[in-house]
């Protein structure tokens, strides 16, 4: 009787090739679809269409006006808060807002806080608008965010 060579039994390994094929496909799929997630957040702006009926408003309720001017390339050339010229310094803008509204103002209530109207040149880059919104809506005190103005609206677009 012939005894089978015991070495043959060792050769009974699984064929890995197909599994590795699939595994590499999966790997390539995940690598290609991988994208580092950037954290994003929102500045909320509640802005109903201005109705003509309540055109007469309480003069004490008038919003602060922030005027942003741009040069031809869309770069910010100067800012004016209630006609006070501030140059292009966002820190100065924030300091002015702090003196105007005080840090305690937004605690008064959701709808009561001061309002800011942003009036910007048409071709100003959006980035500067966000920077000015950042400057007026608050500042960071350590890890704490101190809120200043929460009600922001835009003036009519200037063509």
């Amino acid at each position, binding site marked *: 009787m012939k005894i089978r060579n015991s070495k043959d039994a060792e050769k009974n390994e699984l064929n*890995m090739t197909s*599994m*590795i094929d699939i*595994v*590499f496909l*999966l*790997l390539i799929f*995940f*690598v290609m*679809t*991988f*994208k580092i*997630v*950037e*954290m*994003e*957040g*929102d*500045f*909320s*702006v*509640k*802005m*109903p*269409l201005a109705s003509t009926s309540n055109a007469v408003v309480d003069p004490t309720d008038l919003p602060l006006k922030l005027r*942003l001017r741009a040069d031809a390339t*869309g770069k910010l050339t100067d800012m004016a808060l209630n006609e006070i010229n501030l140059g292009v310094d966002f820190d100065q803008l924030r300091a002015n807002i702090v003196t105007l509204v005080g840090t305690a103002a937004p605690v008064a209530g959701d709808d009561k806080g001061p309002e800011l109207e942003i009036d*910007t*040149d*048409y*071709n*100003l*880059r*959006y*980035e*500067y*608008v*966000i*920077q000015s*919104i*950042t400057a007026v*809506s*608050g*500042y*960071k005190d350590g890890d704490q*965010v101190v809120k200043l103005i929460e009600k922001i609206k*835009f003036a*009519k*677009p*200037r*063509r």
Partner: protein
Amino acid sequence: MRVKRIKTDMAEGDMTPMIDMVFQLIAFFMVLINFAQTESNDRVVLPSSTLVKPPEAPLEFPIVLHVAKDGEIILGGDNYTAETLRVGLQREISVINAEKKSVGDANVIIRAHKDTAAGDVQEVIRVAQEQKLENFALRVKEDRS
């Protein structure tokens, strides 16, 4: 004479460590992959701000408007200009109305490129306001520096 059998396919290396590593990589990418991030658009590079925090709860009835650098607006895969956006918004609003909700509940998320003209963003807001939309969210990137 006995001829030796030539075994050609015996030059296999040990696959085990490679497969271990490959599985580790797959597990890594699987865990980190984020399919929910379909809102983003390649043509939009958001401006950044130190003050924003990622929202705790997603906004209800979001209408995501991407505003590209040249002022073109992308809504649900279709391109619009400020003039034609009304059509796209009305389509979204009809969906909201079909769910028996009012237009005022919808949130317009504006994802504008950082170099877009601010006036183009204002135009988008104006068109949306004309459709009785009033909640806007200006989406920005969180700046942790």
